[in-house]
């Protein structure tokens, strides 16, 4: 396990790289879900304005 973490001494660079990608993916997926929720909410509010 420590071998995985240290990766022959290059652990910092490897995990900073993979970590950045993982973070970017998490942020992207999170923002996608948020965007969809907001779009649905806006449409719902607009629809209810028309037909109260």
């Amino acid at each position: 396990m420590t071998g995985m973490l240290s990766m022959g001494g290059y652990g910092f660079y490897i995990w900073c790289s993979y970590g950045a990608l993982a973070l970017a993916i998490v942020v992207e997926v999170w923002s996608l879900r948020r965007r969809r929720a907001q779009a649905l909410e806006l449409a719902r509010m607009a629809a209810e304005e028309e037909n109260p």
Partner: protein
Amino acid sequence: MTISWFKYSAPANFYPLAGRMIPWFAGAAVLLTVIGMYIGFVVAPTDATQGEAYRIIFIHVPTAWMAMFGYCVMAGWCAASLIWNTRLSAMMAQALAPTGAMFAFVSLWTGAFWGRPTWGTYWVWDARLTSTLILLFLYLGYMALRAAIDEPRRADRASALLAIVGVINVPIIYFSVKWWNTLHQGATISATAAPKMAHTMLAAMLVMIFAAWFYAIAVTLHRVRSIILEREAHTDWVRALATGAPAGQAGRVGTEASR
């Protein structure tokens, strides 16, 4: 029986189709990532010169490639939107841009963290990194121009023209940066050159490229669905979808049930 593909150029029809496609691409991306990481970290050997540090290549090259490929695909959608005046093509370009920019940024970041242990500095002005940096600016310019124009169709067309001018320039930029780099550095070795690739290293990298590709497709399809909802918010089918009420017959395009 022939499939009428043109039916899917209407946002209302593409929306449910995209929704059905997302899980397949997302699942494939996850599967390929697991396989690629396994091959890359468990199967592939340690490199003689770079040690374990070379393993960054399994995400550096895929993200760099996707950034470049993504821009070309985006420009393709832009060209389609200008030639055939289709809204959905412009929406696909709009959906692709943030992911392409993300890939470009991560490519630069991983390039920096690969360069530090192998070449001593976080940043080098080598041809590929510098071109990717300019590519990131091109993506950001596209997104900024879109954001600056309020009217959606005008934003579509203006940013489409920008993307097309950009994609024509990308090979010119790459060529000029490469030339500039070799002239000044003298060495023909790129600062982040790949090690002599064992078969397993190459396999892992290729698997990860496909993983990145399928991820990009899944994410872009998800984003375009939100864009469709935003831009078609005035239509009946979106209203029905948003309020959860059954869609009325009037105003529905095509025969696909909205999901």
